């Protein structure tokens, strides 16, 4: 009995369990799913939120792969579960941005938003702020959690972003994106 209790306590306090690695990425996907439901139907329904959350897990997956591909320090960190967890703790800016977008479309009629011409500019400008804020948070992650020098932290951040954004944007808008790039480069 005592041994079993100790095991339970150990499991609960174990900072290296797989749950530690997946809890934040899964919550990111769930929040994206909820935001998609609110954006697309104005209602938070599991009919849309659950499949959307499942589909959008590609975002945290791509980020995790990019993190370990870009950062030797992340690969050497010993406890990959904790590294993933700490990395995703810096996703607050993106979640804040998405929550704002969802609130905007949930409480204001879509036609009214679309009739207001600056709406696209506001989406892009606010996304730019989230990008900058998130980059700062991740820079701090590389500096403090992975104990990197300023230069190495900046390098890892740029490489991680280059990998994650290239793959992510290809999945998100590869059809028109490829045409736009190819047309400009004369390919």
């Amino acid at each position, binding site marked *: 009995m005592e041994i079993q209790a100790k095991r339970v306590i150990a499991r609960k306090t174990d900072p290296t369990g797989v749950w530690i690695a997946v809890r934040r990425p899964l919550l990111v996907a769930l929040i994206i799913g*909820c935001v998609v439901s609110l954006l697309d139907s*104005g209602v938070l329904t599991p009919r849309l939120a659950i499949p959307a959350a499942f*589909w959008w897990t590609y975002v945290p997956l791509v980020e995790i792969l990019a993190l370990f591909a870009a950062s030797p320090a992340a690969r050497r960190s010993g406890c990959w579960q904790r590294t993933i967890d*700490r990395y995703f703790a810096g996703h607050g*800016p993106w979640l804040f941005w998405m929550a704002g977008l969802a609130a905007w479309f*949930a*409480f204001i009629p879509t036609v009214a938003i679309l009739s207001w011409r600056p709406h696209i500019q506001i989406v892009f400008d606010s996304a730019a702020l989230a990008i900058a804020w998130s980059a700062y948070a991740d820079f701090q992650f590389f500096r403090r959690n992975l104990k990197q020098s300023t230069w190495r932290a900046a390098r890892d951040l740029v490489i991680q972003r280059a990998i994650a954004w290239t793959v992510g944007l290809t999945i998100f808008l590869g*059809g*028109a994106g490829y045409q736009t790039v190819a047309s400009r480069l004369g390919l």
Partner: protein
Amino acid sequence: MIGLRGISWVLLAAAFAAGTLADIAPARPRIFLGGYRVLSGDFHLHPSPYSASTLTPWDLMWEAQHQGLDVVAIAGQNEIWSGRAAHWVARHLGGPTVLASEEIHGPDFHMIAVGIRSTVSWRLTAAKAIGEIHRQGGVAIAAHPSAGSWPAFDAAAMQQLDASEVLQPAVFGSDSATAELRAFFTRKPMAAIASTDWHGLGPPGLCRTWLFVHSNSEEEVLRAIRERRTVVYDRGDYFGRPELVKLAMSEGRLREKAKESRWGAVSRILGMLAIGLAVGCWFKSGVGGCGKTGAGDRGPGAGV
């Protein structure tokens, strides 16, 4: 922190419950006018992945049905496989009438190729693209034909073009876009189309085309577009063949907006509270840290 997280989960569960109640769509009666059945269609819906959108082809198709659409064109940008996937799922698991489609997203023009079988290259001229669409048995709709794209629609293209978007979200709040789409539509007799150009912001079917058909089938929908049996209503103005416009004007139900269940509003409010609390907890435990693990150490103790 656990208390706030717990409240967030309870709110989320309550929002899901209210959202499920709001999801129960009221039965919509079929509308018949002048010997035709009137279908509601949206011919410019982009799925995810690859087309800057949020829902998979099948979820998009089912959501469109939920929004009261009878016919949809699932149109990936420069690809056809997502439209074909939605078409397959609708045929085997049920859904609205789905036309596998593509938005030919070229540098000089955008065009919806509805009811095709294989990808049409964006490198073709508009005239050649329309020729290929017709060869595959589909119809060609000029997508948001603003003045900048007019040179691409030369005489050869205009001669073959089947339809043109006369209403889509680009016209909201823009008199110039409204005038340009309407001017393009008057270049020749063609089917009037209203499309949402859906990328995941707002519901599918925000702009919809009424089709006057003899049956709800893919072939009949394509035939209706070729024969200009469509009507579009835009802020007091009608577009389409005069005899069909007259029929549409006589039926008030076509202009009625779906009434939202009160559970929808409850779900929205609870859902936003749940998301807001979850994001708040995220900040409290993570970046910028005021949680117990401190600003720099976003450690495993940081609660989710």
